[in-house]
């Protein structure tokens, strides 16, 4: 009798936990066909290890640099740990986490997020944080990132956050319950379409150009973390003309890099050297580069990094080369497919492109 009772309780408990786990899986957004950048962070764990360069930052890294070009032209292995509106403390904790998986020779941090000293947006937080595996880095990152309306427990049990999605479940939620889709190239999100810059920003003056103490605090922590781990830290600013990069900000970054003996590359000042052309190399009027731009940037950056840090060329290593050959193939396949869609539909139908003006639904 007692045995039976215990058995019943066990069965009920299993069913409950199993049911909750299943519901959580079902209701958590899959980011398959829309806002696919929500999957970027989780994508890393399948590609961790063996990367000589790791890029960390917001959309200015994951849309602007092509790691496959770095491989093809220089034999540099690299990965981009980028996510939408990644805040500087999130970048720091991602760096910390990355070092638990591998020890790259160089880490490149994109400095745009210096402008944010406070938690910004719940939805972006979720995209950066949900994908991370549990570790003290994730816990600390969540604590640093939460807006006032957020609760830690909803990261522990995302069901508490996403429960109201019951009314908007779609086919992809069921199809991708237990699997995901391959969409990225070492953290790079490819777009081949072109939408040239039409106007240059006329910046609105700010009250205060000084980066916040919090931003500097985390930048200092990055410097220390890299030093302690024998990793070279490089600062970069991508050649995006929106959001505007103020001269006052530039000055602060130059000062900081000099004081700390860091290499700082501002691509906005290297348009001639990289050959970036805003008529052909951006897909959204200058916010992000397209494939052509990302490859140009990678070509320049690869040379610079290889020269400065004597990064090894792995193309001679058969094992590594085989692995990268496969990545490279997938890259060119997608490239071809995107051009095909562009040809066929006039826009990137299944890659998040928008119908050109006048043809909207």
């Amino acid at each position, binding site marked *: 009798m007692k045995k039976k009772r215990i058995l*019943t309780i066990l069965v009920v408990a299993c069913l409950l936990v199993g049911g909750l786990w299943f519901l959580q899986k079902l*209701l958590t957004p899959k980011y398959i066909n829309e806002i696919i950048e929500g999957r970027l962070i989780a994508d890393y764990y399948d590609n961790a290890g063996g990367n000589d360069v790791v890029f960390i930052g917001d959309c200015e890294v994951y849309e602007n640099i092509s790691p496959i070009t770095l491989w093809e032209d220089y034999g540099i292995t690299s990965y981009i740990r980028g996510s939408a509106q990644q805040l500087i403390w999130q970048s720091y904790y991602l760096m910390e986490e990355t070092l638990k998986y591998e020890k790259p020779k160089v880490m490149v941090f994109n400095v745009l997020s210096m402008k944010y000293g406070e938690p910004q947006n719940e939805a972006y937080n979720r995209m950066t944080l949900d994908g991370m595996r549990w570790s003290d880095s994730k816990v600390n990152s969540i604590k640093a990132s939460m807006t006032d309306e957020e*609760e830690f427990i909803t990261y522990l049990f995302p069901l508490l956050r996403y429960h109201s999605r019951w009314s908007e479940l779609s086919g992809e939620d069921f199809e991708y319950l237990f699997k995901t889709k391959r969409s990225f190239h070492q953290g790079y999100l490819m777009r081949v379409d072109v939408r040239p810059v039409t106007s240059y920003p006329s910046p609105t003056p700010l009250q205060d150009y000084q980066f916040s103490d919090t931003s500097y605090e985390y930048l200092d922590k990055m410097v220390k973390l890299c030093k302690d781990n024998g990793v070279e830290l490089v600062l970069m600013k991508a050649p995006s003309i929106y959001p505007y990069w103020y001269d006052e900000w530039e000055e602060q970054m130059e000062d900081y890099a000099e004081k700390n003996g860091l290499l700082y590359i501002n691509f906005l000042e290297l348009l001639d050297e990289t050959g970036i052309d805003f008529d052909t190399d951006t897909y959204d009027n200058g916010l992000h580069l397209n494939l052509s731009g990302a490859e140009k940037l990678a070509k320049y950056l690869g040379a610079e990094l290889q020269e400065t840090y004597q990064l090894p060329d792995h193309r001679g290593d058969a094992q590594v080369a085989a692995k990268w050959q496969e990545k490279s193939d997938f890259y060119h396949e997608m490239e071809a497919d995107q051009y095909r869609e562009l040809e066929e539909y006039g826009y990137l139908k299944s890659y998040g492109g928008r119908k050109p003006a006048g043809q909207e639904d």
Partner: protein
Amino acid sequence: MLFTSYTFIAFLAAMFVLYYLVPKKFQWMLLLAGSYLFYAWAGIHFLAYILVTTVTTWYAAKRMTVLQTEQSAYLKAHKAELSREEKKALKAAGKKKTRHWMLFCLLLNLGILAVLKYTDFFISNINGIFDTDIAFMRFALPMGISFYTFQSMGYLLDVYRGKYAAQDSLGRFALFVSFFPQVIQGPISRYDDMAKTLYDEHPYDHHNISFGIQRICWGFFKKMVVADRILVAVNELIKNPADYTGAYVLAAMFFYAIELYADFTGGIDITIGIAQVFGVHLVENFERPFFSKNTAEYWRRWHITMGTWFRDYIFYPISVCQPMLKLSKASREKLGQALGKRVPVYLSTSIVWFVTGLWHGASWNFIVWGMLNCLVLIVSQEFEPFYAWFHKKFPKVGRTFWYRLFQVARTFCLMSAIRILDCYRDVPLTFHQVGTIFTEGNWNVLVNGSLLELGLSAADWGVILAGVLAMLIVSLIGRSGSVREKLSKQPMALRYGVYAALFLGVLIFGAYGIGFDASQFIYNQF
């Protein structure tokens, strides 16, 4: 700490574990510590108010009991020597002394409540009448002040009346005043009721705990699945009165009835369920009020503890005080038996409803609300002979299901209509809005999909409908005895199915988290 916050649930879980771990004689102290922690969470300075009420009431009651015991001991010892008149005089003198303590304590505490709650209302009326511009005080209202003040004053009056002896221990009395599940929104318990279980040693009792948790879940279901969801539509309707007139006002009345019922009874379910988990029995505050057949019955079944409080401590004392008895005699002589008898009753009814309205909130809306309730009560009392005649003439009609349904529907509609005074900004606007129901004639908005434009999708309405149906079914089952008792006799599969459905219902379909504002319980500030 809102009932629907993660913090509260964690607090509850910690209290629960500790409660059954500490030595049994410390259990009530743990509840006291927890209650004060809970209260301090809302703002540590608010503790001052509840402490003043607690200490003054405790001390005054204690003094009264001492005086009463001394007197009765003296009377007993000198029984033989004292004449009847002497005894009477002694009693009167004793009563006077205790009355001083009672009055001092009563006026102090009601004074605090009045100043904090009604000063700005008073100022705004003065400003309105004399066209002055006195600045508002904007006192922050301590959490649950109306509830704990009334509960304490009930105790004070009971001790004064000699119903029971005062509680000796300040700590125990403080727990009675501040017991955390009920301090925010009642029920307004009586001391003799609560003392039966509040201070006892409670061993782990599976039945109580399981039933308590079921009740808590059911409360969360009503509150989070139904009330907080339909709240969106109610707010849309009443915050934009100019856009939503006519049939929309009717819809608002109906939706608000659902919201308030689900919110308030859900909150009370959570309260009583939590108390049950700790082995404490709290008195019921609702008895399926929407099944009432008339207004008087409705008010005996809705917010019961408030109704009985007003009855016992205001209605009865006013009705039987000397001036009222004199008035009664005089009116019987002047107006004749039938009419004269009713004058004092109606007068005290009006007073009670005026105070009840004022207690609900410092605004004319609530005063008018109270007076309208009073009016309906008196009118239906006056119609009594007509109904009696009707039932004599058509004895079969009154016994049919349809007639009872008609009575229930009539009461529901009447109460919903009066209750809409809670919602609109002021009294004239409310009357204007209700008036448009009869003039606007836009009945088509009820069926042409306009109701789907109120911020809730069809799926949301589906959930609300299912929730309302669930509440209706539970109410129907509950008419013939405890729903949980009945459920516990069902086969295991069904039982666990119901528990799981309830739990998952709250978890998935609850309107909580980002995108939904966990609204304060509606009665919180009252």
